[in-house]
């Protein structure tokens, strides 16, 4: 009864986040650009555009650091992997803003890359006259492979400026109205002999007359479905060839030139921070590796622990640990870096509703949120003459994205988490230096190269990748002075709180020094007094 009243109130309301006031809603691309320019005026931040998308929109990167920025371990923060996930862009932006204004001290040891929005073409749909959850860029693509590109997108059948759902009364349909909440459609439980009553589609017409609905969207390729790891070739929004888009190529080309990145934090639907990825021995052993490696799982679990201590919201239904062709998995499986992902925001568990839509609506009701739901309303549909067709359901964006007034707090906590991760970065130190005169002008030098960090210099996957440098130890003395020991030594990995023993015998009495490190693990230097 209460529900009914609430639903009634929603009709004609201004809406949840789609209000006109700029300060109470997610920024437009223009507003994002202005904020980025402002961050870019900071001495420690360098703003550059990697490319322009097919839709003519910039792909920005902020490189934030001080001093020798390329020789300090770095964390890359990525937003907008999914265009509909507007919260992720705001989280990345606010992280950058807080970093340059409140946490400059972190730049003494760490460099940060912030890629605030990888899907600007799709993001723009949030502020468009017709609002829908968009993933694809502005490239023209024939998703259903019928010879004509984008010839069956959505249609706003009820004219409310949003794409929701349509249900068609149909004894052959697979859906029924939820007993939990009559606003929600659920799949009929055929295992219990339950018959369906409705077919359910995205709000659309069969524009290309092939019997299918909204199967050839007017959007292009989705960034988060078109990278190389498990690339879903030929699927809608993925296309024929991975990393074929301007934005994905520009990003990867840039990343492959930044040797100092040791970890990624990606704000996207995939989550390995609330709980770590699961190790599967069989999949990890296969030639094409599809499981996190064993040692890396332990690292993931440790970082996940830090995340859960830092973030106040208890995880709920965080089962997405990666989807085919996505960025978050690419960063680990194909780029060999530590990769952490979180949506940053999710609906908390409420009144033990197991269906996520019902849970969301119950929670939204309890907070009195308006504009999150469109009541089912009958319309005349040209493709279903004589059938009852209704349009309605949860509005776009509201479930995947935080109400704007909550983003500040989420960004605060996630900034704390990223800074804690930075504090854990690999840290090379030289200890136990021994300089022994062994007679006849010869000196033996020995020292321990110590990684004073809970994170190894190379993850197990990183050790395999040619795109991470080895730890290089250079004895800075002329070759003819080195009697034994390597002038240049390459070390595959130094484990967490682990060490490598170094030793040389040198001739002569001039001091020599040693430099050790790798861009993503940082460098240390020491001079030996002979």
């Amino acid at each position, binding site marked *: 009864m209460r529900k009914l009243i609430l639903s009634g109130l929603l009709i004609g309301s201004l809406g949840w986040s789609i209000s006109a006031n700029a300060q109470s809603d997610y920024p437009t691309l223009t507003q994002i650009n202005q904020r980025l320019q402002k961050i870019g005026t900071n001495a420690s931040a360098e703003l550059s555009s990697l490319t322009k998308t097919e839709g003519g929109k910039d792909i920005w990167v902020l490189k934030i650091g001080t001093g020798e920025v390329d020789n300090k371990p770095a964390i890359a923060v990525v937003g907008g992997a999914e265009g509909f996930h507007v919260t992720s862009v705001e989280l990345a932006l606010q992280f950058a803003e807080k970093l340059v204004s409140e946490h400059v001290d972190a730049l003494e040891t760490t460099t940060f890359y912030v890629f605030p929005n990888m899907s600007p073409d799709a993001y723009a749909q949030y502020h468009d006259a017709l609002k829908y959850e968009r993933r694809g860029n502005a490239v023209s693509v024939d998703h259903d*492979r*019928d*010879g004509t590109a984008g010839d069956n997108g959505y249609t706003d059948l009820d004219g409310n400026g949003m794409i929701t759902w349509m249900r068609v009364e149909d004894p052959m349909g697979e859906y029924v109205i939820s007993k939990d909440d009559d606003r929600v459609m659920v799949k009929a439980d055929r295992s219990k002999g339950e018959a369906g009553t409705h077919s359910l589609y995205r709000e659309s017409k069969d524009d290309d*007359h092939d019997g299918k609905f909204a199967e050839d969207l007017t959007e292009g390729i989705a960034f988060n479905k078109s*990278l*190389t790891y498990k*690339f879903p*070739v*030929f699927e809608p929004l993925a296309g*024929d*060839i*991975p*990393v*074929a888009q301007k934005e994905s*190529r520009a990003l*990867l*080309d840039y990343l*492959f030139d930044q*040797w100092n990145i040791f970890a990624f934090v990606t704000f996207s639907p995939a989550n390995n921070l609330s709980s770590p990825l699961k190790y599967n021995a069989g999949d990890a052993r296969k*030639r*094409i*590796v599809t499981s996190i490696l064993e040692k890396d799982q332990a690292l993931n679990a440790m970082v996940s622990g830090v995340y859960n201590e830092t973030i106040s919201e208890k995880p709920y239904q965080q089962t997405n640990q990666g989807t085919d062709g996505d960025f978050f998995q690419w960063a680990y*499986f*194909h780029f*060999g870096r530590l990769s952490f992902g979180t949506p940053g925001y999710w609906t908390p568990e409420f009144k033990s509703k197991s269906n996520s839509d019902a849970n969301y609506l119950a929670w939204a009701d309890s907070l009195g949120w308006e504009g999150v739901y469109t009541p089912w309303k009958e319309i005349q549909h040209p493709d279903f003459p004589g059938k009852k067709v209704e349009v309605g359901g949860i509005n776009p964006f509201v479930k995947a994205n935080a109400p704007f007034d909550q983003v500040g707090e989420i960004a605060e906590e996630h900034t704390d988490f990223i800074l804690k991760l930075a504090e854990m970065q690999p840290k090379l130190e030289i200890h136990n230096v021994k300089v022994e005169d062994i007679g006849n002008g010869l000196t033996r030098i020995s020292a321990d190269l110590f990684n004073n960090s809970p994170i190894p210099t190379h993850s197990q*996957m990183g050790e*395999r*990748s*040619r*795109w*991470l*440098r*080895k730890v*290089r130890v250079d004895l800075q003395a002329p*070759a003819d002075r080195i009697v034994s020991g*390597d*002038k*240049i030594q*390459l070390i595959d990995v130094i484990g967490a709180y682990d060490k490598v023993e170094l030793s040389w015998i040198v001739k002569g009495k001039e001091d020599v020094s040693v430099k050790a490190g*790798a*861009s993503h693990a940082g460098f240390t230097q020491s001079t030996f007094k002979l």
Partner: protein
Amino acid sequence: MKTTKLIVGLAFSALSLTSITANAQDKFFQAVGTPYMPKVEIAFNRYYTYEGLVDNMKKIAAAHPDIAKIESIGKSYEGRDMMTLTITDFSTGPDTDKPAMWIDGNIHSNEIQGGEFALYAAWYLTEMHADNEFIQQLLKDKTFYITPTINPDARNDFFNQPNTANSPRSGMMVLDNDRDGLNGEDGMDDLDGDGHITMMIRKSPTGRFIKDPQDPRKLIMVGADKVGEYEMLGQEGTDGDGDGRVNDDGVGYYDPNRDWGWNWQPDYIQRGALRYPFTLPENRNIMEFVMKHPNIAGAQSFHNSGGMILRGPGAEEDVSTYNREDIRIYDAIASKGEEMIPGYRYLTVYKDLYSVFGGELDWFYGTRGVFTYSNELMNSYLYFHKPSQGRGQDEMFEVDELLTMGDAFVMWHEFEHPQFGTVEIGGFKKTFGRAHPGFLLEQDAHRNAAFTIYHAYHTPKLSVMDVKEEDLGGGLKAITATIFNERLMPTHASQDLKHHIERPDYVTISGAKVVAGFVVEDEDFKKFSEQKMNPEKIAVANIPGMTAVKVKWIVSSGSNYTITVDSAKGGKASWKK
């Protein structure tokens, strides 16, 4: 008749050629199967640099403007134009309207002769066209896109810079091979300055080798209880970066044939892969060309060596990609190839060779449904027409003694090495072993070109035939047409059908008012599947090889109608009443 044609041809050709051909008629007599008075003279017993290949290609295009044109399909990493010849009889329609064959070579830069073999194919097609009816018909029906070198930068490096027979396999991009933070700081050093990177040996009291007393070129191991005289030091070079290893960071390393976008895997799984598929501009140019030319139905990528006709899959993980119906066609074409090219065997990459992820032939087939082979050119069978005895270098020493008269070997000679002291440098030249010696080049080029021509011949050929009318009364009549594909390949490989890679073939009737349209599934039992939308343009999923597909319309008017078939990979054909 022939003579008349020849005279007409000559009348149109450049004046400067006239005197040469007049002399040629006096001095030469045609050997069967070879153009004996080519407009473009090319010696096929030597190798050509990138500039040499392009020069010949430009001459071919200039001499045969009606059947050949040349274009750049993009720039290489170092900015060279990647030149492609399009060869077809342009008087019978644009190249894009005909089923096409893609031919390339030299993806691995040390695998040079793919360049000459592809060039030979272009030369042969254009020079034989005037006199040979088979070639005339072939170029009416088909298009050839020929790119002799798809790795022009490193092709030149192979010839003009010191190298071994195995270097460079990559292009000229320089990476950090030893992961020390520096790129290409320890490349190969041509200590003796002869353009060949050979081997280094050194006299040593603890060495295990001696020079063979009967053949001083050979280093042989002494008996277990004997003291030797030499030790092996490995490749000619120095430790350029002071890390204790010789030549450990030169050009590359990456493999252009691990850079393609089908089942691509990163370097730790597939050594040689770059950042993502089509990182290399050379491969990206080809990919973009192929995506813009959906008429490409067959492809050949020449490699060396070993005498193989290879098909995919490159990796066991892709076994299910290659479907039975398509393998049947692969087998039929390649088994003819084994007959045409003695010593060559038809093999499948993943099970007979090694695993390749992200290879070119898998991309052509997997992403485009194009029937593709890679021929691994050159085979030791060609030396003595005997299968290899597995004697390795001994066989090569024999070849160099009897057939190439010592031209293939750099005799051991002393050199003062900055790190090793007095060493001897010597060994086989870079141009021996993998590359054909000159006297074998033309013959093997012809055989391989003939195989690609056979391959191209079996891309689909469609015709509209056997059009029948039946009066249905009430002003209606039924029109049935047969679309026949008289070649081995289907218009859609089963891979293509599985993923709807290319649009269906369209069979269209114009000049008639269509009431209903059908694909005929069984004419005798009157089984039809109706196409309700746009019945005048029937979409046919596939026209298999050596098979006919029937369509039927019911029309209410029209006595002068035209039926056309339009297939992306099968070309176009029409029938007019």
